[in-house]
């Protein structure tokens, strides 16, 4: 039941902004829900996302700053955005959408929904 609701969140996200891949992952790097291309390894994607966010959180903590709201990796064509979704999970997506403000707003909304479900 929860899984269906989480799958729907990723589906709804894809309807609003241009998303190539997305996943909901536990903070310790296990896949909960995913909408990934077939050639993408879900396990590794999930573990890398959690590791990147974990490293960013440690970095900000070390600098006596607040926890990061998100980590954005920018390439020439896409952005990989990893965002906390409550204490238990994180949301990650790959997007080539140029309207980054819209993407971030929609991701934030999705993250809040994930937090409520989990």
């Amino acid at each position: 039941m929860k899984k269906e609701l989480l799958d729907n969140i990723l589906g709804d996200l894809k309807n609003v902004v241009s998303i190539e891949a997305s996943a909901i992952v536990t903070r310790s790097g296990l896949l909960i829900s995913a909408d990934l291309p077939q050639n993408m390894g879900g396990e590794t994607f999930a573990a890398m996302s959690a590791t990147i966010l974990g490293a960013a959180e440690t970095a900000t903590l070390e600098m006596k700053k607040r926890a990061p709201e998100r980590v954005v990796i920018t390439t020439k064509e896409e952005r990989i955005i990893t965002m906390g979704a409550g204490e238990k999970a994180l949301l990650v997506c790959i997007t080539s959408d140029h309207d980054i403000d819209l993407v971030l707003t929609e991701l934030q909304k999705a993250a809040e929904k994930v937090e409520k479900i989990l």
Partner: protein
Amino acid sequence: MTQELIIGGIVSVAFTRRTMGIMFTSIYDILGKNGADALLYNAGRNVGRAFVEKEKEITKSENIELLNKCIQIDIEAGFGKFVYDVDFNKFEGEVKLYDSFLAKSWIEFTKKKQEYPVCAFLAGYIAGIIESTFGKKVVVEEKECIALGNKLCLFEVKKDVFGD
């Protein structure tokens, strides 16, 4: 020529518990608990898978017989003693680990109890062992840990919803 260490017929290397403790606590220092758990679970799972595949090749055994051989080598290698109490039809249950080398390494180095379970590598390792032995993906989570002051490390095994 240096002398090679052979465990279970395989060339191996040995680290002291203190060295292991330094290596693993360093990873947690940089990546934080969640980041390190993610990295180490994934690494452990890959190690477990590769170990079983090698044992399959060497011993030509499978299923429970193969699992028992892996358990025996883990004891010889000093990983600890794994006791699998898992229903291999439903792929649910728990694994007890006595004398976890990882938890003991942490305690050896830090000289104190930890605030969270520290055997994410071994949780992933168990997941990889079960997956490659029985062909079904599982998720493994550590519930009790020697590093927390428990008598043994206890891992919960559940079927992976992404396993089919």
